[in-house]
């Protein structure tokens, strides 16, 4: 029996498919059969309406036997036109019911049928109407599976790529329409997107969590290293030119807003990338977020060759001085300082800097531990899940399967490499003029990607000199990179407001 189990299952499956096909073709070949079937339910309907026993009468039959609006007693509600139409439709459905039709409609609601036959018109990333075929949704399902594989098997940013991958998978399920609106009711992914991705709430909640998790001590101890975080922003701004130049290639036409939204990938800061994309180019949100998180996960692969190319072995061996201890009051006042500077200099960056400072302030004051724990754990995790699902909801064929996605992937890599190089080159320059030696390897940590970029600098330093501990020194440009990217984002928002 056990040996025959697969065979039995196969026969059952083939049988079911044959039954389905028979029903489908019989309905097509013999339209009279359905006409014949129409009479039966009509008779049945009559039977129901003729029932005198009110206990057996369905609500539908009660409505049917209701008196005419004109002869109604005062206070009784007349039957609406829409309700009448619905009743007529229900009646017609009941009359039209046949086994063949039933099978046909079941077949038409299968995913296989939809993937093979579906054809819809949707707005592309550039706002032009495009025809989307079912097979394109199937490819997007595959993309979702690849993202899941990257997250699960390769451990690439699993906290984010797994929900994004699953969101991609779900939003491309045909018929269910989870990412859109059907019959006036929004799908669950649409609700998630509207609740916090489209209105930029979730990235800001994540920024609060980042603030609550970040220790700005290394930056306060050695503030001049924060210049490396500023230098790394050349990756963000430099890529704007790259995006504009890409317009020379046929098939690409980025606007300045789109170029800015893409270039922020160079900041290696996921929430900021999503924040800017939602603000300047919401139609590119999916590809930008996926590219940003993918490159963040690839920091240990992308940065080392750039670091080796731009530094000499002797520079990599440079040992840096121990930082001074930082007092509690200094740490408490730091978030207030950056908020005040933000208010005075670039208020457009206040949502990002403000939420980061809020999270860090309540961490440092040390009297609201419950709130800090909530920000660091539950709130951050909930926002991450919903944000990633919302991003996945944007991974539809009309938005993803476009030439612009290819451009985003290329430009993202350029932005990331340029940012890393910018930090290293400024560190080399500072090393020439500084009294205290600066290891240029920590410059690449100026791109945010906290703390992975700092870890890469540390690891590279240890490869050159196993006794060299750069991690705490690299944290200074690393956290200043977060501030720098938020300011860069504020500049871009201010430019297009």
């Amino acid at each position, binding site marked *: 029996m056990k040996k025959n189990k697969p065979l039995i299952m196969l026969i059952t499956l083939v049988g079911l498919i044959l039954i389905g096909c028979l029903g489908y073709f019989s309905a097509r070949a013999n339209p009279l059969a359905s006409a014949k079937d129409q009479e039966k339910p009509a008779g049945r309907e009559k039977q129901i309406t003729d029932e005198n026993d009110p206990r057996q009468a369905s609500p539908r039959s009660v409505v049917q036997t209701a008196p005419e609006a004109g002869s109604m007693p005062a206070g009784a509600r007349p039957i609406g036109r829409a309700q009448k139409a619905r009743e007529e439709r229900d009646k017609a459905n009941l009359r039209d019911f046949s086994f063949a039709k039933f099978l046909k409609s079941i077949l038409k609601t299968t995913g296989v049928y939809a993937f093979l036959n579906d054809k819809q018109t949707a707005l592309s990333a550039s706002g032009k109407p495009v025809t989307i075929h079912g097979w394109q949704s199937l490819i997007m399902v595959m993309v979702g599976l690849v993202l899941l594989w990257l997250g699960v098997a390769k451990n690439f940013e699993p906290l984010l790529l797994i929900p994004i991958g699953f969101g991609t998978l779900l939003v491309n399920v045909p018929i269910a329409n989870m990412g859109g609106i059907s019959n006036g009711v929004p799908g669950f992914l649409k609700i998630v997107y509207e609740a916090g991705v489209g209105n930029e709430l979730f990235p800001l909640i994540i920024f609060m969590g980042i603030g609550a998790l970040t220790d700005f001590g290394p930056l306060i101890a050695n503030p001049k290293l924060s210049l490396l975080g*500023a230098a790394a922003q050349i990756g963000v701004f430099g890529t704007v030119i790259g995006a504009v130049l890409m317009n020379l290639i046929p098939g690409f036409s980025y606007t300045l807003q789109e170029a800015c939204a893409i270039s922020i990938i160079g900041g290696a800061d996921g929430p900021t990338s999503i924040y800017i994309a939602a603000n300047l180019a919401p139609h590119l949100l999916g590809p930008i977020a996926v590219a940003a998180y993918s490159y963040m996960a690839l920091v240990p692969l992308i940065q080392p060759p750039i670091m080796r190319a731009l530094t000499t072995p002797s520079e990599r061996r440079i040992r840096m001085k121990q930082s001074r201890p930082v007092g509690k009051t200094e740490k408490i006042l730091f978030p207030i300082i950056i908020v005040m500077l933000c208010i005075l200099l670039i208020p457009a960056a206040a949502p990002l800097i403000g939420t980061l400072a809020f999270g860090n302030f309540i961490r440092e004051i040390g009297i609201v531990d419950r709130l800090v724990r909530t920000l660091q754990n539950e709130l951050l995790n909930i926002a991450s899940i919903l944000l990633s699902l919302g991003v996945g909801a944007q991974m539809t064929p009309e938005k993803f399967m476009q030439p612009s996605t290819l451009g985003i992937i290329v430009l993202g890599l350029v932005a990331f490499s340029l940012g890393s190089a910018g930090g290293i080159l400024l560190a080399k320059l500072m090393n020439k003029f500084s009294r205290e030696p600066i290891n240029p390897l920590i410059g690449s940590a100026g791109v945010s990607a906290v703390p992975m970029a700092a870890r890469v600098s540390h690891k590279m330093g240890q490869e050159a000199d196993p006794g060299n501990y750069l991690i705490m020194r690299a944290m200074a440009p690393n956290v200043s990179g977060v501030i720098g990217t938020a300011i860069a984002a504020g500049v871009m928002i201010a*430019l297009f407001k």
Partner: protein
Amino acid sequence: MIMDLLSKALMIILVGMGVVFAFIMLMITAIHLNAWILKTLGKDQEQPK
């Protein structure tokens, strides 16, 4: 068209990098100033719990 976009992109680089560096420089100055004030007031020895 491209030249127009390029000139605007160049302006974005100049303004953007200028603002980012200005912010970070001011932040560095504020951190030093804050440390100096706290040292003067004798409040720089308090360590986080």
